[in-house]
């Protein structure tokens, strides 16, 4: 049996391996089929139906992301039937969506908005269902904000949480018109097994799941003359920031980032690299200590193997899922929190500023750090060790708000 399949898409012939989906085959021909619930990282859902295409001879349209090719298929991706159906589906999604785009955090960066613009959905005939419904906004988590009124129920977040992260904090609840993305017993995100990793935020096509942002708080601190605002940047930020500011993805922009942070008005621009090294030294020492205690002194209280404690997402996952194995985890603080404690003790003394007037901000690649900074045990300096955590995306927003032309900045240290 042949392992390839021949088909035509919009009249163009293509030969693809068996098992390829119609949408992938179209992509090979350079034909873009719009998708919403489909994401290359995730298993196929086939539930938004935006990607429907026509198979000649069939009245039903196919979800191209979920349909494997077969020999002799004749596919049309832009027939009148397809266009009409696709417009209908986008209209349906919009009718159930809080489409108050100007008040949305994802305005300008939303896949549904993009589709609506592409298909020029200007004559919304359908009844606005979103208006007549009561939606909840869950803002209890220090990391993630969930706004059900913006949700299009594509279930990308559910699949991300389950398949990629194996956490399962998000799930589908209820059916029909009450179907929604929910948590265990519809508790707030802050009360369930969520590790605050933020992967759902990355995969959400709309503004239904967003990072809890602290941009205004940081601007206020910078503007306050009585405050000394220290900023630390995690290693990952310097390679992620460029992409948000129209540079090449993955480009290292350390110098420009430092320049930008100074121009934003931070009093002191420091690097988490320093405390990352400190963490490694501390964890290394702890490991040597444990090895000696466990292997030489045969003291079972000191557990091996020892895992890192650097990532707050990992720590919370461990606490929820493997509480019986917590003694295997290093007792060291993460680099962010070591930095925070140092900023309000050693550094405060060194520059002669009262620690209560120091505002410690960190720029981090993941939303779990926001949660970590808010943990009650992270107050070793006598104050909240890290006051605000911003993600790379929030820093990029601040840079844009300040009118800084990032690509023209000099490299600073």
């Amino acid at each position, binding site marked *: 049996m042949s392992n390839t399949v021949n088909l035509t898409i919009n009249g163009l012939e293509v030969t693809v391996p068996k098992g390829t989906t119609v949408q992938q085959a179209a992509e090979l021909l350079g034909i873009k089929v719009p998708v919403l619930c489909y994401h290359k990282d995730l298993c*196929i*859902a*086939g*539930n*938004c*139906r*935006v990607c*429907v295409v026509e198979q000649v001879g069939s*009245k*039903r*349209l196919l*979800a191209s992301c*979920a*349909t*494997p090719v077969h020999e002799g298929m004749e596919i049309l991706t832009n027939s009148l*039937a397809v266009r*009409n*159906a696709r417009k*209908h*589906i986008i209209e*349906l*999604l919009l*009718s*159930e969506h809080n489409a108050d785009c100007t008040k949305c955090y994802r305005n300008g960066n939303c896949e549904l908005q993009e589709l609506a613009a592409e298909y020029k959905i200007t004559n919304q*005939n*359908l*009844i606005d*269902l979103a208006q007549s419904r009561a939606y909840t906004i869950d803002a209890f988590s220090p990391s993630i904000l969930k706004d059900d009124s913006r949700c*299009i*129920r594509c*279930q990308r977040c559910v699949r991300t949480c389950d398949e990629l992260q194996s956490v399962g904090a998000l799930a*589908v609840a*209820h*059916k*029909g*018109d*009450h*179907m929604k993305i929910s948590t265990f017993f519809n508790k707030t995100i802050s009360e369930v097994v969520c590790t605050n990793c933020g992967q759902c935020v990355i995969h959400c096509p709309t503004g239904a799941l967003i990072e809890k942002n602290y941009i205004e708080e940081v601007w206020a601190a910078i503007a306050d003359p009585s405050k000394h605002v220290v900023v630390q940047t995690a290693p990952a930020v310097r390679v992620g920031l460029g992409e948000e500011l129209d540079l090449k993805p993955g480009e290292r922009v350390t110098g420009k980032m430092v320049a930008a942070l100074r121009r934003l008005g931070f009093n002191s621009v420091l690097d988490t690299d320093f405390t990352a090294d400190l963490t490694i030294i501390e964890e290394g020492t702890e490991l040597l200590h444990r090895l000696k205690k466990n292997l030489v002194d045969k003291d079972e209280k000191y557990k091996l193997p020892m895992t890192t404690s650097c990532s707050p997402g990992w720590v919370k996952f461990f606490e929820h899922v493997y509480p019986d194995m917590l003694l295997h985890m290093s007792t060291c603080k993460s680099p962010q929190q070591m930095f925070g404690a140092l900023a309000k003790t050693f550094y405060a003394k060194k520059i002669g500023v009262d620690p209560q007037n120091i505002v410690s901000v960190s720029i981090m690649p993941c939303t779990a750090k926001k949660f970590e900074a808010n943990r009650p045990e992270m107050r070793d300096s006598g104050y909240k060790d890290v006051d605000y955590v911003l993600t790379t995306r929030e820093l990029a927003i601040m840079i844009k708000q300040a009118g800084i032309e990032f690509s023209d900045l000099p490299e600073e240290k």
Partner: protein
Amino acid sequence: MGKNVLKRIDLIFKHEDDCKEILQKTLNRSNDELINELIGSGLKGRGGAGFPTGLKWKLTREAAGDKKYVICNADEGEPGTFKDREILSTVPHKVLTGMAVCGRIIGATEGFIYLRGEYRYLTQTLQPEIDKFHKICDEVGLDFRVKIFLGYGAYICGEESALFESMEGKRGEPRNKPPFPTEFGYLGQPTVINNVETLAHTWTIFKYGAKKFRDLGVQDSRGSKLFSISGDTPIPGIYELELGMTVEEFVEDFGDGDTKAVQVGGASGFCVPRKKFRDIAIGYQGKLTGISLPTGGSMMLFNSSRSMYNVLHNYLEFFCEESCGQCTPCRVGTQQLLHGIRAVKRGEKPASYLDTLFALSETMKATSKCGLGQSVANSFQSIVENFREEMIY
């Protein structure tokens, strides 16, 4: 009314307790012979979709899999159907025999009855019947066991792939097709899933031969069928009738003399107005039968005192609630249709808005993931088309 123009058939509920003999006799025949008999009988799925049963068994038999399963779909949830409940209460051994024979043919040793959650009380009588049947299987040397799986009350779980998901402990949501159950069913294994009534008919075919079954009905719609008859009729109940009758014949027998419409196939079926009674037959689509409507057996009669707007409103409310909610056209489309007809009725939208909704229902039909979303348009379109003035005024 009550003219008895239609012949009453008495096959399914006929009292027969020769279960062991029939099973033995059937198992003595080869698998090929049995499949040919079944295909020759012209039996099609009685859940409403009408897939040829013999072909389904044949495909599953030929499919490769570590294990195979036989599932009896007893999630009878279509509004207006109540025949499967009666079969399982009175002649469960016929269904069990059908499952066991199917198991032998396809190579399955395990079968399940997916029982609608609301039918939990049936297990009290059904379980002893299953136990008794297991003994018969042992006596005839057949390795086959049947378990009851209780559903939780969602309409969508009657859709075969959602039913598998439900049995696997997941949310009852239909899967993408292909692959079909014959290749990828319960636990990803080749699975035969048949309606209760379909399995009961196989008893008749194996006991009396395909000819007896084939002689009933018309071309492409062979055999008899159970009808759950309700609404404005003096004689509601379950009746076994030949396929191929016209709606007119049906109404003559079961109507109250003032029938204005018949809903064939429940909420997901079609509404036939009086003026079309003569032109429409009950059966599967085929060459000779002309316009024919398939049905899972739900027949609801409405007389002139009924508002078809209320009927449609009721169906749409049902669909809004019972859509699984995963795919856009079904989840949002059902809500738009419901809110839409309300808005037209209240004068908030012009009458022409019905045309907008009509086009929307076409999209739902073409793009929904499973049969539920695809069939909402059936009742919507047939009611709006035939009773437009009742929708507006």
